[in-house]
C-alpha cells in the first residue's frame, strides 16, 4: 500500500552517522565563529562599540550641543574638553569639529529628535558606524593619529532632509 514505506525499518532508524557528522560539523563551524568574534573583542579593543551610555532628554541634549558649538565655533578644541555632538533633523551640531592629532577626546553623541546614524568616513579608509538614539547618549573616546579631514554622514533614515546631513571633523597637526 502506498501509504507505508517499502522499508519499514527506515521509520525508527536513528540518524545515520553521516547525518550526525554533518550536524556536528555545522555546530562546530558556528562555535568557531562565535569564539572568534568574542576573542576579537579582547584582542583589538580599539575597534569596538562603546559601552558607556546614559539617558538624556533630546531637547536638553540639543541645548548642550548648541552651547558647545557656540563656544568653539572656528577654534581648535583644547585637550581635555568634553565634546557634545547632537544629530538633529537635518544637521550635526556642531557642523564642524577642529581636533588635534594624537589627542584623545571624550565625545558624547545623542539625538535631538529621531533616530540618526553616526558614520565617520575618512580618506584613509576609516569607516565607523554607530546608531544615534533619542533619549540615550553614547560616550566615546576618539583619537586621530594623523591630520586630515573626516566626514560625518547620517546613515539612518531620519526624514526628508536625511541625504544632506553631513558634518566634518578637521584634524590638525
Amino acid at each position, binding site marked *: 500500500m*502506498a501509504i*507505508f*514505506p*517499502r*522499508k519499514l525499518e*527506515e*521509520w*525508527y532508524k536513528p*540518524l*545515520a552517522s*553521516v*547525518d550526525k557528522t*554533518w*550536524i556536528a*560539523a*555545522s*555546530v562546530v*563551524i*558556528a562555535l568557531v*565563529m*562565535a569564539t572568534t*568574534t*568574542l576573542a*576579537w573583542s579582547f584582542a*583589538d579593543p580599539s*575597534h569596538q*562599540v562603546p*559601552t558607556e*551610555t546614559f*539617558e538624556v*532628554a*533630546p531637547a536638553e541634549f540639543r541645548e548642550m550641543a548648541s552651547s558647545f558649538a557656540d563656544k568653539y565655533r572656528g577654534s581648535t578644541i583644547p585637550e581635555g574638553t568634553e565634546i557634545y555632538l547632537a544629530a538633529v533633523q537635518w544637521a550635526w551640531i556642531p557642523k564642524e569639529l577642529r581636533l588635534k592629532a594624537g589627542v584623545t577626546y571624550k565625545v558624547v553623541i545623542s539625538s535631538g*529628535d*529621531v*533616530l540618526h*546614524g553616526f*558614520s565617520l*568616513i575618512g580618506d584613509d*579608509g576609516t*569607516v565607523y*558606524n554607530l*546608531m*544615534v*538614539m*533619542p*533619549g*540615550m*547618549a553614547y560616550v566615546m573616546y576618539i583619537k586621530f593619529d594623523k591630520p586630515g579631514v573626516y*566626514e560625518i*554622514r*547620517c*546613515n*539612518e*533614515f531620519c*526624514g*526628508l*532632509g536625511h*541625504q*544632506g546631513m*553631513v558634518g566634518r571633523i578637521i584634524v590638525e597637526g
Partner: protein
Amino acid sequence: MTGSYGVEDRFARITITFSVLLLLLGGIFGLAQVINRAPYFELPSFLEVSPKTYYTFLTGHGVFLAVAIPIFWITGFTAYLAPRVLGKNLRGGLLRLSLLMMFAGAIMAAAAILSGRSAVLYTFYAPLKAHPLFYLGAALLVLGSWVFAAAFFLQYLEWRRENRGRGTPIAVYGLLTTFIVWIEATVPLVIDVLKNLLPMSLFGAKVDALEARTWFWFFGHPLVYFWLLPIVTLWYYMIPKMLGVRIFSEKMARVAFIMFIIASTPVGLHHQLVDPGVSAVYKYLQVLLTLVVASPSLLTAFNILATMEMGGKARGGGALSWILKQPWGNPVYAGLAVTFIVFGIGGLTGIINAGYQLNLLVHNTTWIVGHFHMTVATIVAVGYIAATYSLLAELFGKGVKWPRLALAQPYLWLVGILIFSFSYYIAGMEGAPRRMLNIEGAGGPPIPSEWIYTLQLGAVGGIVMSASGALAVLVFFYSLLRGGIAVARIAPNPHPEEGDPYHPLLENWRLWIAVAIVLILVAYIPTFYELYSRGLAPVSPVGV
C-alpha cells in the same frame, strides 16, 4: 488523493496574482531607486525624483516586496499545496475571512504610503511617525495571515489525528515550520503596533525609541526566515522530485526545520549591535544564537547539494559532470537552483554582518543592501516566481506561454544580482550609506570618489535585475491570457512509492515550540529587563 479544492484554489489564484502585481509595482520603485542613487547618471527628467518621492518609493519597495508579497504568496502557495499533500480541505470560512482582512489591510497601508504621508520606510522606527492607516493596515494584514495560519494548523491537526504513526510529508513539514516561525515573528510586531506605534500616530503619545526598535527587530529577524522557509521547503520537496531521487537525508531535512523553529527568533539584537543602551553581554548572547541559526542553513546546503549530486549521477553524470546533468533547461529547476546558489553567497555575507566588530564597518551601508538582495529579493523575484511558473498550469489551468523567456528570467537575474550586490558590497565597505538618493544631485557636499563607480555599476546590475523582473511579470500575465505548456508539477505524485520517515522526536511539535519559547525568553528577558528597570526615555513623535 483526489479531492475538490475549489475554495483553496480561488484563494491561491487571487493572492498569487496579486503578488505578481505587487512585484511589478515594487520593481518599478526599485529601478527608480537604483538609478537615482547612482552619482552622475544623466537621467531624463521624468526619471529623476525628489527626496519625498524617493523615500515614498523606498517605503513602498520595502513594504510591498518584502512584507506584502511574502504574506500573500506564501498563504496562496500553502492553500494550493497543503490540501493536496494531506488530502484534506482547509476551512472555507476562515480562508474567506483571512482574504478579506489581508486585502483590507494591504489597501489601507498602500493608500497611506502612496498618498505620500507615510514615508517612514518598512522599518518605521519610532519616533518618526506615519499616517495611522499605515500601522492599522499592517496590523490587519498580519492578523489576516494569522487567520490563515489557524486554518492551516487546524487542517494539519485533523490529519494527524487520522494518521497516527505516519511521518509528516516534507512539503507540509516545511510549510508548518514557516507558519510557526511567522507566529513567533509577528507577536512582537503586534505588541509594538498596539503599545507604541498606534498611540503615537493617533494621539501623539511619546515613545521610547530604543524599546520600539527592540520590538521591531524581535519581529524583523524571524521575518527573514518566513521569507526563506517556503523556498527551503521547495528545495527539499521539488529538487528531488524533479531529479527523480529522494532527498539525500530525509531526517536531516527535518532536523534543519526544527533548528529554524528554535533559533530563528532569539537573534533580533544582531540588528542592534551598534545601538546605545543595550548591554554588550546581551548583544553577544544573540550573536552566538545567530551563528547557531547558521547551522540549519549549512545543513540545508549540504543536503541539497548531495541530493543534486545523487540526481545528477542517476542521470548519467560522473564525479563532476553531475553538475552538467542537472535539468538546467527547466525554468522551475533553474529558478530554484539559482536561488540556492545566490542565497548561499548572500548567507555567507550575512555571517559577516553578524560579527560583532565587522558590524561597525558595514552597519547601515549599502553592504546591507547587497546582502538582502542576494537573500530576500532573490527568494521573491526568482524563487517564488519559479514556483509560480509551474502553478500556471496546475492552478490557473494555463501553462507557460513563453517557456524560453521563463527560462531566461532566473539567469538574467543571476547576472544582474551579482553585478548589483558586489558593487553595493564594495561601496558599503567604503562607507556609502543606504537609504539615500543621489547625494550630489540633492545639493549635498561632494561624495567620495570610490562611491561613484561602484554605485554606477550597481545601477547597471539593478537595470538587469529589473529586466528580469519585467520578464517574470510579462510571462505570467501573457500566459494567463494565452495559455501555454506545463513546465513542472508541484502537486504530489499520485502514487508515492515510499512514505515519509517517522521519527517520534521529529514529529513532536509541542516540544520544539516549547524549546523555542524558552530560548526566546532567555534571549529577550535580560534585554527588556534592562530597558524597563532603567526606566524608559519616551520622546515626542516627529513627522517625516
